[in-house]
C-alpha cells in the first residue's frame, strides 16, 4: 500500500507487517480500504484505544472490556468498522493479524 511517498507492507489479509511504521495517515489509508470514507472522532476513539492497549501489552484487547471501557456496545463498533473489531478496527489500528480459531 502506498501512503504518501512510503510503501507500507501488508500481509495477505491486509494487516500491517511492521506495526511500528503506523501513523494517522496509514490508519486513514487502511480505513479507506475498509470502506470508511472519513475517520470520525468515534473511529479514532476505538483505534486509539486498541493502539494504546497493544503498545502496553503486545496484544489486541478483548472486545468485552474494550466496549466497557469505551462505553459502547459491540454493534456500534460493527457500524463503525463493518469488518468488526478484529478484522476491521485492529487492522486500521495497524496491529498484526490477531490469532483466532477458524
Amino acid at each position, binding site marked *: 500500500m502506498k501512503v504518501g511517498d512510503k510503501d507500507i507492507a501488508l500481509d495477505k489479509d491486509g494487516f500491517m507487517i511492521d506495526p511500528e511504521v503506523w501513523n494517522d495517515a496509514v490508519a486513514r489509508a487502511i480505513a479507506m480500504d475498509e470502506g470508511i470514507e472519513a475517520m470520525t472522532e468515534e473511529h479514532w476513539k476505538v483505534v486509539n484505544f486498541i493502539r494504546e492497549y497493544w503498545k502496553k501489552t503486545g496484544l489486541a484487547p478483548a*472486545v*468485552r472490556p474494550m*466496549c466497557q471501557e469505551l462505553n459502547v*456496545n*459491540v*454493534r456500534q463498533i*460493527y457500524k463503525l468498522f463493518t469488518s*468488526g*473489531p*478484529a*478484522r476491521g478496527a485492529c487492522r486500521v489500528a495497524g496491529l498484526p493479524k490477531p490469532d*483466532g*480459531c*477458524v
Partner: protein
Amino acid sequence: MDGIIYLDNAATSFPKPDVVHDTVRDFYSKYGVNPGRTGCDLALKAEQMIHGTRKGLSDFFNQSIVDAGKVKDPNRLVFTMNATMSLNLIINGCVKPGDHVVTTKLEHNSVIRPVNHKVRAGSEATFVAPDVEGYLDPESIRKGIKKNTTLVIINHASNVTGVVQDLEAIGKVCAEAGVPLAVDCAQTAGVIPIDMTKCNISFLSFTGHKGLYGPTGTGGICVADNATIKGSIFGGTGVRSADPYHLEEYPYCLEAGTLNLSGIAGLSAGLKWILGKGIDSIYHHEMELMGMLQEGLAAIEGVKIHGTRNLKKRVATLSITVAGYDPSDVGTILDVDYGVQSRTGMQCAPLIHEHHGTTPRGTIRFSVGPFNTKEHIETAIRGVSEIAADRRK
C-alpha cells in the same frame, strides 16, 4: 461468572461441579504424592485413588460385563493427558507403513492429522462420507475396509453438529471383518451410555474434561480385553526400574512418567457426580434445552441449521450460520452484547464443514450443559434473532 451464559460445553464443560474442585484440593492437601514410587502410606493412598478411578471408568464403559458378574481388567484403562493423546497412541500403535485405516469425514483434527501423518509415512487411509444429515451408513464402513485395513476409527458424536453414530451396527461390521474398532468418545463419554462389548469396540478414547466433568489434562483409553495397542511412549513406570525396556503389560505399556494425579482425583469426582445425578437425567435436561434452542433458532429468518435436526440420535450440540454474517462476528456480538459464549469457526473439524458447505468460515456452535437453564436458551435465541434482524434492515 455473573452475566455469562456458557454454551460451549463441547469444548469443555463449565462450570465443573463443586465436588470436583473440592476433590482436587483435598488430594493436594492430604495425599498429593507420587504412587508406585514408594510404599509409604500416602503413596499407597494415591495408588488406591488411581486404581479406584481406573476401575470406576472401566466398569462405566463395560456395563454388560459388570452386569454379567464378570470382571473387566481395570488395568486396561490407561490414563493420558487428553483425547488427542489417546487417539495418537491408538493410531500409532495400530497403523504402520503399508497398513490401511478407515476413518470418516466427521472426525476432529485429533484423528485427521495423525492419520494424515501416517499416510505421509506410507500408510493408506479412506475417509468415509456420512449422509446429508451427518449419519454414517455402516455399509459404507464395510465397503471402506480392505485386506490391509488394521484399524477403523470413528467419532461417536460430531463436535460440530452433535450427530451420534450407531456404534452397535458399525461395531458389528468391524467384528465381521475382523478389524479393530476405535471410537473417539470425546463428545459422548459421560453423556451417553457406551458399552464396549455390545458395540464391539476395541479401543475407546475419552477425554476427562467434557462430559465426565473432570479437570483438563485428563483423558484415557479403555482397551478391550481381546485387543492390544503397541506402545509408542517409553520411560519411567515407578516399578521394575532395572528393566532396560518399557514394560509390556497394561497399564504401563501405554503410560510413562507421572500421571496427572490431581486431575485423575477430580475426574473420579466428576464420574461419581454423573452417576449420582444419573446420566439419563442429565442427558434429558440438555436435550430438552437443545430442542428449545433448535426450534427457536429454526424460526429466525436468515438462520440456517447445519446437520441433523434429529433430537434422538444426537448430543446437545448445534451449528448455525446467519445470513449476511461471518460466524465469528455473530459470536463476538453474542458474547459482548448478550453474554452468550458460543464457539465459532471450523471447530478443528474441517472435513465435516466441507461436507456441510460451511468452509472456510465455519459456523456458530452452541453446546448445552447441565447447568444451563431455559432463560439461558431464551437469551441466546433473542440474541441471534436481533443480530439476524440487523442485516435485514
